[in-house]
C-alpha cells in the first residue's frame, strides 16, 4: 500500500501555490477591468482636487496599477487582506465573521448531499435498467434542473408563508430571549438552517448520485463482485461492502465538482435566506466595486477549491491502494 510520497505532496503544494498566484493575478486584472470604482460613492460635489486625491490615497488608488498589483500580491502573502471601503473595516475581520457561517452551510449541505447522493446512486447503479432506477433517475434529473432560488421560494412558500413551520431568514434568532446554552443555540441554528439546507440539498445530492450510479454499475461487472455473490453473500452485503466501496472513488473526486455547485448555490441561497455569509457579499462587492472584499472572497473560495482538489487526491489514494502518486510503477 503505497502512501503519498513526501516529494509528491511537496510538488503538489508548490503547484497549488503557483496556481493560486495566477488566480490572484487573473482576479486583479478582471476586477480592475470592470468599469467604475467604489470611489464613485465617496466623491461628492464640492470636493476639492486635493480631497479627492486624499481619498484615492487612503484607498491606494493613486498608485500606478502595477504597484497596486504588487502590493496586493505581497500583502496577501502575509495575510493582509486590506480594508474594505464599503464596510469600513479590515477585510480579514469581515471574512472571519462570515466565512464560518458559509462553511456551516457548506458543510451541512455537503454532508447530507454526499450521503444521500452516493446512497441513491449506489442503489440505482445496482439496479440499473430496472423500473425503479428509471423512475428515480428521471425524477432526480428533474430536481437537478430546478433553479435553486425557485425551489427556495417554493419551500418558503410552503413551510413559512403557508404553514409558518420554519423561519425563512437568518442563521439564528436575532435578539434571543432564551438562555444561551449549547443546546439552545444548537437547536436554534438547526431550526434556522433547515430551509436553506433543504433547498440546497434538494438539488445538490443529485450531483453525487450522477457520479456514483455509473461507476457502481461498472463495478457490478467486476470479478470480485461476482466472486462475492458466488460466495453466497446477500445482495445487500455485496452491494454495500464490495461494490460500493470501490465505486466511491470517483465520488470522492467528484467532490470538487460538488464544491463548485455549493459555491454557486450558496450565493443564491444566502441571498434568498438572509444568511449572512460569503455568498451575500461576493455579489454585492462585485456590484459595488469593493475590490478588497471581492478579491478576498474570490481568493478564499479559490483556496477552498484548491485545497479540496488536493484533499480529494489524497482521499483517492486511501480509497484505492492501486493508485500511487509520485511513485514509479
Amino acid at each position: 500500500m503505497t502512501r503519498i510520497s513526501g516529494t509528491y505532496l511537496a510538488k503538489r503544494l508548490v503547484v497549488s501555490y503557483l496556481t493560486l498566484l495566477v488566480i490572484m493575478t487573473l482576479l486583479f486584472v478582471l476586477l480592475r477591468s470592470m468599469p467604475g470604482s467604489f470611489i464613485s460613492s465617496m466623491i461628492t460635489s464640492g470636493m476639492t482636487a486635493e480631497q479627492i486625491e486624499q481619498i484615492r490615497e487612503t484607498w491606494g488608488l493613486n498608485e500606478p496599477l502595477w504597484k497596486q498589483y504588487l502590493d496586493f500580491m505581497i500583502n496577501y502573502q502575509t495575510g493582509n487582506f486590506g480594508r474594505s471601503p464599503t464596510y469600513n473595516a479590515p477585510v480579514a475581520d469581515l471574512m472571519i465573521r462570515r466565512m464560518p457561517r458559509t462553511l456551516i452551510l457548506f458543510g451541512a449541505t455537503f454532508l447530507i448531499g454526499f450521503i444521500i447522493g452516493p446512497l441513491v446512486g449506489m442503489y440505482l447503479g445496482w439496479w440499473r435498467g430496472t423500473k425503479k432506477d428509471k423512475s428515480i433517475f428521471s425524477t432526480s434529473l428533474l430536481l437537478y434542473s430546478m433553479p435553486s432560488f425557485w425551489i427556495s421560494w417554493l419551500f418558503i412558500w410552503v413551510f413559512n408563508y403557508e404553514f409558518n413551520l420554519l423561519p425563512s431568514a437568518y442563521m439564528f434568532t436575532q435578539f434571543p430571549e432564551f438562555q444561551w446554552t449549547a443546546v439552545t443555540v444548537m437547536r436554534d441554528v438547526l431550526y434556522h438552517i433547515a430551509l436553506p439546507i433543504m433547498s440546497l440539498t434538494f438539488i445538490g445530492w443529485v450531483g453525487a448520485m450522477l457520479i456514483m450510479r455509473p461507476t457502481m454499475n461498472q463495478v457490478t461487472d467486476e470479478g470480485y463482485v461476482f466472486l462475492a455473490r458466488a460466495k453466497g453473500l446477500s445482495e445487500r452485503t455485496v452491494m454495500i461492502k464490495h461494490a460500493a466501496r470501490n465505486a466511491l472513488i470517483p465520488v470522492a473526486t467528484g467532490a470538487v465538482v460538488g464544491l463548485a455547485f455549493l459555491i454557486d448555490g450558496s450565493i443564491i441561497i444566502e441571498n434568498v435566506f438572509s444568511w449572512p455569509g460569503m455568498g451575500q457579499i461576493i455579489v454585492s462587492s462585485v456590484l459595488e466595486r469593493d475590490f478588497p472584499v471581492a478579491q478576498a472572497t474570490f481568493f478564499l473560495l479559490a483556496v477552498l477549491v484548491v485545497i479540496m482538489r488536493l484533499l480529494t487526491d489524497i482521499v483517492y489514494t486511501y480509497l484505492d491502494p492501486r493508485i500511487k502518486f509520485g511513485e514509479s510503477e
Partner: protein
Amino acid sequence: MSEKQSGSSRRRFLQGTGVAAVSAGLAGCSGEGDSETETTEESTPTEDQTPTEVGDAEDIPEGGIFNFGMGTAPNTLNDLASSSAYVGVITDRIYESGAAIDPVNFEMHPNVFTDWEAEVLDETGETDQPNVEIGFDVRTDGLTWNDGTEFTVDDVIFTYNYLLEQNPGGFAASLAPIESVEEGDDRDCLMTLNQPNGTFAYDQFGLPILPRHRWEDVDDYQTYEPADTDFGPVGLGPGVVTQYNPDTSVEVSFAEREGEYNLSDLDWRSEVPGVIPGGPFVDAMRIRVYSSQSALHQALFEGDIDTLYENIRTSRIQDAEDSDRLELLDGFDTGYGHYSFNTRRTPLDDTAFRQVLGFAYDDVYWTEQLQRGYAQEGDFVMPPGYTAVRPETDSDQEVLEGSATQAFSFRQTSPSVPDVEGIRSFLTEGQIITGEGGTYVGQEYPGSLTGVTAGQSEPKHDYSFGSVESDVLVNADEEPDQEIRIDGELLTDVHDGPLTMLLSPAQEAPQTAQMVDDWISSLRQIGIPVDREVVSFNTRVQRAYGSEDFDMFTMGWVNLSPFATNTLYSLHHSDNADDHSVAESEGDDDNTDTLLNNPMGYGVFEDAGADDLIDEARTTLDPDERNQVSRQAVERIYLDFATMVTGYEVTKWPVNSADWTGFVENIPGPGSTYLGTQILQVHRNE
C-alpha cells in the same frame, strides 16, 4: 426609481437593492394637509430655549421594544465616512446637530444650540461675497453625551474645527462656506461664513456634534470604526448602540443611555401639530437586516418587525390594507425622479428639442399603470411637499394640478398614443415653450406662474422630417414613417449615432425599465433615433456625474432641502458642472472626474441656465424673498428642461398600529428622512 441620491447637506445613497416602491393612493393626497403652512423664518430660533416639562408625556405609556427592518446592511457606525442612508438609521439616533428642523412646517428650531444671530460683515473674504458672522449659544445644561460624559462648548468648537480639518466628503458642501469657528465673547461661539447663506441653520448647524474625548485621537476619520470601541459611537442623541451585528441586527437602546437627554422636551415641539414632545418612549429600537425586499416584507407581515425603512412595496399595499395589524401612513417624496439630458450635445443643446422629449413621456402610463397610482406626475425640481418653494405658491393654481405645471405633459391623440403629427409640427414650425401662454401641440398653456421665461426664445436648429434612414429606426419595431433632420442632416450624423439613454439593469426597478421602453418607443414613432444602454448604478454614476459621458440617463434624488437654495445650487448651478467646451482648447482645469451634481451642464451655456436666480436666492437672507426667487429659479429650470422630472413617489409607510401609535403622518419621508421624529414619539398603544 430604485437608486437615488440625496441632495441635502448629506449626500446619501440608497443602495441599489432598496426598492423605493412608490406608494399611497392619490386619495388623502399630497400637500393638502398643511399646504397653507408657509415656511417661516428659520434663521432665528423660536423663543423657547429651555426645555419644559410636557404634561402629555406623563400619560404616554413608556417601554417596549420597537422592531425595525431594512433591506440593506449598515456597514459601519462611522457617520463621517459613510454616505449610506441605512447607516443613518442608527447614527441619527446617536448624533445631534445644532439646530433641528420640524417635518411639518419646515422651520428651524433650537436643538443643541439655543439661539443664534447672523450679521453680515463689510469685509469680504476670498469670494466676492460679504462675510457673515454667526454668534450662537450652546445648550450645556441638562445635556450630556450618551456615555455620561459632560458636554461642553469646547466640544462644539472642536467638532467644527475637526470637520474643517478632515473635510469628510459627505459634509463638504456644508463645510465649504465656513471660514472659522471659535469661542465668542457675547455668545458661546462665533462662526464666520465667507458668504451670506440664508439657510445656515439647516446647512452649517445641521452637522453632527462630535465628542472631543472620542474623536480627538482619530487622525483619519475614514478608517475609524466606532463599532470597534468599547462603548460604540458617542453622541448627544437619545440612543446608545447596545448590540451591533452589522450583517444581521443592531440594537439602539434608549433606556440604557447614560446621562441626561432633554432635546425632545424643547418647547417648540409641543407647538408643531402632530409632534409629541418628551420622547423617546420606547426602551430600544431593534433593527433587523434582510437580504432582500421579499424577505423584509415577509418579516413585516409575519410580525417580526413593526415597520421598515422608507416604503412598503406597491405589491404589498393591498395586503397591508387588509391586515388588522398594519396601518399605512401617508407621506411625501423628499425628492424626485428624473431623466436628465446632456446640454453639451447637439441636438440636446436646444430647449425646443428637449421639450419634445417631454411631450413623448407618458406620465399617466407611469403613474397609473406602472406605479398603480402610487406616484405623482412630475413637473418641478421641488417635490410637492415643499410647498414654499413650489411655483404654485402665491398663485391660484393647485399644487401639481394646475395647467401651468402641465406644459410638457404627454401629448396624445388617443390614450397612450403619442400625437406624432402634432409633435413633429411643433418642431418644424419652430415652436418653443418660453413661458408665454399659448397652445402647444394641442394643449393650452397659461404662461409661467412666476413670470420667468426660458433662456431660449426660439429653437437653435432647423428641424424637418424625411425618409427613415438611420439603422435604429429602420430596424425599430415602431416602424416610423419619417425621420427627423436637424439643420438638414440626420441626427445620427450630427450627433454621431443615435441618442442613448442610460438606465440601470431592471433587477429592482422593472417599472423604470418599462417606462424607458415606452418613452423610447414614443420618440421613435416621432422619428427620433434613440437607443438604450443598460449599465449598473456605479457605472451610471461615473458616466453621468464623473465624466459627463452620456446623452440621457435616469436616476432620482431624495432628501432635498426644503429650503431649495442649497439643492438648486448644487444640482442646477453651473458651478457644479464641468464645462467640457473648455476642455478642447485650454487645459482641463474646468473638467474633472469629480462627481459634480449638475451633469446636464445646465447653466454652462448662456441660453439655458438659472445661475442668476440661484445666486440671488442663496444670498438672500429674507426667507419670503428668498423663497420667491427660488420659485422663479425652479420654474426657469422647468422651462429650460435640461432635466425632466418624471415623478414623485407617494409614500406609504407601513407601521404596526396594533401595538404602536404616535406616528406623524403627511410629512415628507415619514419612514426615512424624518424617521427620527417617528422614533422619538412612537409609543405603545394603550
